[in-house]
């Protein structure tokens, strides 16, 4: 009987006995993510489930990511097969108004320049010794677009899903801290003061707004078919919104579906953060490269803004180039705030929102092109 009690007690403490040194560290990291989400309001919809998922998966013997574990079931249900990011994209499409972008379609180019960091970071990651597909997953953090990063990584470098997702969402929320010094460094005070209030823009018609998602899907899909799931879902959401005839579906996409999927996606990402795999020098390098990617996006966006400024005879404020990334609407708000610091009567917001929505299309298009290039060279 005494033996049975001892054995029973040892069973109670088995979790503690099987703890690897990395597990408590990851539980603390999960706690930090929860703190950032709950107390600092940093991407709470994602960081709360990610943080909790990280805590869950680092409790030994629970086997939540084992073959029968519930986190594994959720992961297989929508992350391993890339379904969750695509469902989120339908919601993003149905929440986004591309009107400011269509009011001045030239701004599309800023949405392209804001993706250069992806490709430059791939080259840097290769230099650091990452494999080609791992470098692609790391570079895609520069899309500044969580679902795109998750889609590409879960498909081609699933072992990096945890650090890539955490980097993508963390840096997206740090855009207001990362971008302003770069914007100031690359522009003169005179450029930052450029008034775009008089810049000619014409609002798009309802027909143009309806045709936009169809045109982007068909042309983008024909050029980069490997990225059609990304393009098709965001544009389906936008078509539903602009058509106005399926408001129930639009509301479901931007609320119920997006909310449920965000919860499942977050907890699944957290579940990939097992300490034994997460706490490696590789993770630190991925976080560093993610930071570099977003800095390079901002640098290239602002420099492209300067080129456009030169070509338009000084009518474009180069600051709006920084909004050519996908972090919407944070990047646009940063541009508005920085612009008003130097010219309180300047309202860059609508132009910046145009560049920012261009960045949303740009990030998806860049990922689509990247995947098609990978297919073309036979890597996938």
């Amino acid at each position, binding site marked *: 009987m005494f033996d049975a009690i001892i054995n029973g007690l040892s069973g109670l403490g088995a979790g503690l006995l099987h703890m690897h040194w990395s597990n408590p560290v990851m539980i603390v990291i999960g706690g930090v993510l929860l703190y950032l989400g709950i107390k600092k309001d940093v991407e709470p919809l994602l960081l709360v489930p990610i943080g909790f998922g990280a805590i869950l998966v680092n409790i030994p013997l629970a086997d939540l990511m084992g073959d029968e574990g519930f986190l594994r079931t959720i992961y297989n249900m929508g992350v391993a097969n890339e379904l969750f990011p695509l469902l989120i994209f339908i919601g993003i499409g149905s929440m986004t108004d591309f009107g400011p972008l269509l009011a001045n379609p030239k701004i*599309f180019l800023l*949405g392209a320049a804001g993706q250069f960091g992806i490709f430059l970071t791939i080259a840097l990651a290769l230099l650091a010794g990452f494999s080609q597909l791992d470098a692609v997953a790391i570079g895609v953090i520069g899309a500044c677009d969580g679902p795109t990063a998750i889609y590409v990584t879960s498909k081609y470098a699933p072992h990096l899903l945890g650090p890539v997702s955490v980097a993508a969402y963390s840096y997206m929320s740090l855009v207001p801290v990362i971008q302003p010094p770069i914007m100031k460094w690359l522009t003169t005070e005179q450029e930052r003061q450029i008034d775009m209030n008089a810049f000619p823009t014409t609002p798009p018609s309802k027909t143009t707004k309806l045709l*936009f998602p169809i045109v982007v899907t068909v042309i983008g899909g024909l050029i980069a078919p490997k990225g059609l799931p990304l393009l098709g879902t965001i544009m389906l959401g936008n078509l539903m919104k602009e058509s106005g005839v399926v408001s129930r579906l639009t509301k479901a996409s931007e609320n119920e579906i997006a909310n449920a999927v965000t919860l499942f996606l977050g907890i699944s990402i957290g579940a990939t953060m097992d300490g034994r795999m997460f706490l490696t020098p590789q993770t630190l390098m991925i976080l560093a490269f993610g930071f570099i990617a977003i800095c390079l996006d901002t640098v290239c966006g602002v420099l492209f803004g300067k080129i456009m400024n030169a070509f338009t005879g000084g009518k474009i404020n180069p600051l709006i180039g920084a909004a050519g990334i996908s972090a919407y609407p944070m990047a646009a708000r940063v541009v508005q705030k920085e612009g008003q610091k130097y010219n309180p009567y300047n309202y860059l917001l609508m132009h910046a929102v145009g560049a920012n929505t261009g960045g949303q299309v740009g990030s998806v298009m*860049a990922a689509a092109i990247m995947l098609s290039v990978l297919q073309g060279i036979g890597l996938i």
Partner: protein
Amino acid sequence: MDNWTFAATMIVVGMGGTVVVLGGLGLLMSLLKRIFPAQDEKR
């Protein structure tokens, strides 16, 4: 494919392709705006 060739391909085709496709889309949408102007719909 060696890493240098891969990096160069991604930068040239990836970056270049993104600019060309988005630039082309911008032009196409400008054209569609002219064909379907907002004023006509208001009338």
